């Protein structure tokens, strides 16, 4: 289990670096556009479109990480109060549900990329293959991180991340 957790941590680290680079590029483009338009009087035609695609990458990659660090908003008032084995089963069902949704994102995301990825972007000579894959890749990461939580729940409870609200209440 430790090796699997280390692998997940490595993936999380790589996704973090990628997402930070994407977000930094997003910031740089929007900020420089304000400067070039208001100070220099011109803008590139793609400065409205490309930040949107970067935002989509940032959102889907970070959303997958939020599954791992349990940052997604949940109504976990009752969920955390179910004791013992019943509680473990409920938590397992929740993870299985998340994995199922991740599978939909992967399975049908890939189909969507195959069907429509070759369509062109609006203002730049690239195809949508550059941003559509954000969704199936996010789905795969969601499966990985929810799978990690499910396995940790049964085999290595000490390695599980606590939901943010419970960590707060516990203190």
């Amino acid at each position, binding site marked *: 289990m430790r090796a699997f957790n280390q692998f997940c941590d490595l993936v999380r680290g790589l996704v*973090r670096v990628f997402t930070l680079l994407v*977000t930094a590029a997003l910031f740089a483009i*929007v900020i420089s556009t304000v400067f070039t338009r208001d100070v220099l009087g011109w803008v590139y035609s793609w400065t409205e479109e490309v930040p*949107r695609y970067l935002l989509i990458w*940032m959102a889907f990659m970070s959303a997958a990480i*939020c599954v791992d660090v349990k940052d997604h908003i949940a109504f976990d008032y009752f969920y955390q109060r179910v004791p013992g084995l019943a509680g473990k089963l409920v938590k397992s069902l929740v993870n299985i549900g998340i994995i199922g949704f991740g599978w939909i994102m992967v399975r049908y995301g890939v189909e969507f990329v195959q069907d429509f990825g070759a369509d062109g972007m609006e203002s730049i000579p690239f195809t949508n293959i550059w941003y559509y894959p954000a969704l199936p890749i996010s789905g795969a990461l969601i499966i990985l991180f929810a799978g990690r939580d499910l396995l940790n729940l049964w085999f290595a409870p000490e390695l599980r991340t606590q939901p943010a*609200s419970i960590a707060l209440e516990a203190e």
Partner: protein
Amino acid sequence: MIISILVGVFVVLLFMGMPIAFAIGIAAALAGLSYSVFLDNPFVIDNVTLVQRMLFGINSFPLLAVIFFVFTGAIMARGGVAERLVKMAEVMVGRLPGGLAQINVMSSMLFGGVSGSAVADVSSIGRMMIKAMTADGYAKPFATAITLASATMGPIIPPSIAMILFAYLAGNVSVAGLLLGGVFPGLMIGASLLVYAYIHGRLYHPTKTPILTLGEKVRRILEGMGGLFALVIILVGITSGAFTATEAGAVAAVYALFLTMLVYRQVGLRDLPSILWESCLTTAVVLFLIATTSVFTYIVTYENIPDWIAANVLAITDNKWVLLLLINLLLLLVGMFIDQTPALIMLVPIILPLASQLGINLVHLGVIMVINLTYGLITPPVGTSLFVGCRIANLPMTALILPMLPMLLVMFAVLMLVTFVPAISLWLPQQFGFAS
């Protein structure tokens, strides 16, 4: 039938503790599947359409404003702005009875104009003020309760992520109008809490803070103004037409970097990745919710549910004031159980057609919805700000109910005023041409 599956699955998953974004997504996927299984109509929403709507649901330039405002709030909170605003607030109200409680409220009012987040307010102002008030002899539950109550100004006074979300969800409402619409209601909440702190101070805690020299007062005000200038950039930039909301957020982010890194020198280059990462995660939670809810909304709209609800509610009453009262009660109830962002994303498409039919101004509606759901952040059993406040003060939730009750009543009175006197939220946007 389809709606029963959609709502039934969502509610079951919600109470199981499934993250709301996934509960909505799974309910929508199962409802989509039901079209082909039960109704032999596979073309309404298959799973490829589901992922397409998720992608297109967040493919929007105005949504970029969210990450810029989140980043600005995060860096301001980390960069020493909160401390300076507390010192500035001491100059403004510290000499009134109940000095520290007054400072607490005033600091939140000022910080609300910087962070746009109630949680950021509780964690930064709360950390300082609860400790200081307890040391000064205030009961810890009272100190925590007033911190939480005053933190509700964060998402109401601009910049406000909730207002940007409402504008995006409603479609044809001016972001600038909504941001300006929140100014007076936010200030009224602050003023009402200052009055409450004054009365409480006169009765139980008349201590005032020490007298400051004129030079010290000027220094504190100038230092505090540094943080508040971000608010000026955003409001002047948007109302003058110089920036869109997204660009105003970007400029405010650059200003926040300049202020905290070069002027205050409390944020270093090494801190930036963690602040940016924190902003990414916060923003992703919002955007992923929008992505999955766009599928949910598609089905709800396909089934004409908003029109059905509108027709049924209008059969009960077509008086817009009664309707506004009912909307308030519904939102307060929902806010007790569901966080502000998902509640907003799910309820705006449902309430909007109803409000439009009765001629309710959408800026007015947006302000009312944001205020209600912001109150939900501090009401039990589920409230993000409430959890953070309990953690900082190391108190159980139950200890806060009694001291918070009078404050909630005062805030409810303000909500009623904002609801039944539309000019409070509409006058300022109308002056700038952002509301009819």
